[in-house]
């Protein structure tokens, strides 16, 4: 039913189509770009060691970037990385946020005070610097980046959940349910959660895109995935020196930036469109 409604709106349909495209790419990655070493499919194969990128040829449809990493391979396997990072970081931080936020919102008082002060402490760190520090301490690697991001992403959800639970708690239909003899846990399950959790789900679906951007940013800064790992951010970081092309041709190395950039933009756009559509679909007032 939700899907049907998503289909009705052309914009959300577009988002859905792009997203399904990415899912297919991620699923069929071994078919689209067979790994040279099946043990380490995420390592992008290199075709030489020259630092100058080479333009697309039939064997390398998107060309090769600095260090002769195959761009097409990196994009295809990078899709899996993007889904993995986005879903994991958002999923885990969302879960932490919902637990912390609902305890703070529902029980209030001292719980609320203590938990929200902890949230404030976490929020007061500048995220990028904190992430760089964490990865410096723990070492480079995608798992460490994800850990760092979870550490600094859950507070938003906690605040969102707490806020909407506080608002819902005051609604008269909660009192009405109580007056009708509905049990406490049933009130939480049937009235409080459904009315407070949907904003979080919408926010989460939109955040998956931005998490991927942040992860790419960290990879670009060199604190993310290890050298040669299939990750869109790293692909862009490879192309950093070739942005300006040669004096004769400014766009000589366009493929080093455009393909990974396009992948990131489309991925984030798709999640945003779907998230937007989610909000409309999940709000009974928007259905007619």
């Amino acid at each position, binding site marked *: 039913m939700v899907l049907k409604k998503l289909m009705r709106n052309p914009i959300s349909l577009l988002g859905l189509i792009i997203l399904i495209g990415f899912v297919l790419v991620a699923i069929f990655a071994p078919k689209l770009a067979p790994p040279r070493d099946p043990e380490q499919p995420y390592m992008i194969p290199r075709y030489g060691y020259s630092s100058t990128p080479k333009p697309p040829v039939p064997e390398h449809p998107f060309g090769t970037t600095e260090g002769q990493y195959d761009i097409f391979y990196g994009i295809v396997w990078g899709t899996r990385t993007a889904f993995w990072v986005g879903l994991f970081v958002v999923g885990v931080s969302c879960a932490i946020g919902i637990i912390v936020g609902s305890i703070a919102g529902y029980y209030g008082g001292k719980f609320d005070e203590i938990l929200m002060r902890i949230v404030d402490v976490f929020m007061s760190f500048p995220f990028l610097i904190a992430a760089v520090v964490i990865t410096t301490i723990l070492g480079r690697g995608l798992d460490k980046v994800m850990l760092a991001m979870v550490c600094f992403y859950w507070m938003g959800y906690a605040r969102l959940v707490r806020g909407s639970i506080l608002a819902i708690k005051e609604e*008269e239909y909660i009192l009405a349910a*109580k*007056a*009708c003899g509905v049990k406490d846990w049933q009130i939480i399950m049937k009235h409080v959660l459904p*009315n407070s959790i949907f904003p979080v789900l919408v926010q989460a679906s939109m955040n998956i895109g931005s998490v991927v951007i942040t992860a790419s940013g960290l990879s670009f800064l060199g604190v993310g995935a290890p050298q040669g790992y299939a990750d869109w951010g790293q692909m862009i970081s490879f192309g950093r020196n070739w942005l300006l092309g040669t004096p004769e041709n400014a766009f000589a190395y366009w493929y080093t930036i455009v393909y990974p950039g396009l992948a990131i933009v489309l991925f984030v756009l798709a999640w945003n469109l779907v998230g937007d559509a989610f909000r409309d679909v999940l709000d009974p*007032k928007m259905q007619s």
Partner: protein
Amino acid sequence: MNEQKIITSLDDNNVLLSVSGLKKYYPITGGLFKTHVNDVKAVDGISFAIKKGETLGLVGESGCGKSTAGRTILHLNKPTAGDIKFNLDGQMVDVNQRSIKRLRRHMQIVFQDPYSSLDPRMRVDEIIEEPLKAYGMKKDERKKRVAELLEAVGLGKSHMKRFPHEFSGGQRQRIGIARALALKPSLVICDEPVSALDVSVQAQVINLLKDLQDQFGLTYLFIAHDLSVVQYVSDRIAVMYLGKIVEIASSAELFLEPKHPYTEALLSAIPLPAVDYDREQIILEGDVPSPANPPSGCHFHTRCPYRQEICSQKEPSLQNINDGHQVACHFARELSLAAAPVISAI
């Protein structure tokens, strides 16, 4: 201290609900360690009784504690002190944390704001069957009862599967009424059920409430701030000021012979449907004092045009003036107060 005594000339067998010395205080905390500083005395020791089948109107300006009183009776707020007794099949049962589970099906509430009292994510039939579900009624019986209720409040089967936002304020209030009636309660607390509605719709909903009362033998505690509405529905009226009841009388008597200066002022404020009618309106000076810090003696003395020295020193208790007419004023017998300017013919 100045506990108001229960004074009821009502025959006990006929009483459905009796409230005595009901208090609801909200603590004010302050300082670093959130120590208890003071209380907001939202409801400060009220006592009254409602007979089976009658409508008791509860009026007062905003913030006088009338809604809090209604909700506290149903234990939606925990009362700070006081006794609430409910007549369950001829037996007066104490309403407390424990018995309330059993009593909820007999005492229901209609809320003021029809926009906030219905869950926006539930369809009409789900909303109305919620209390039935909570009391374990089977599915096909529930379906039947929901259809019955919708018809009783003037809605149709076609409305069952719709969401609350598809309805107008008046229709939503009808849904709220249907939900309140689902369990066949004997007492319904109407918490300003029409004050959020358009005037034209108010009349419809009030008439619906009256019809339902006749049809199902309901007893109402009708909370409102609109005196003309209250006069139209109520058999008796209680006037509240700053958490206390200052006067209770039958509807006609209260309008014809008010005994409390506050009642007089309220009556004189009723708007009249006549432009050229010249009358003396009593304009109360000042604001309602804070219920956290009520004036000494009679709570009304700061704004009373008839105040004497004793008013600021001694708190008047609710006294029987004549049969069932109770007033909390030191000079209730001496003052001759103006009746309501025009008593509408309804």
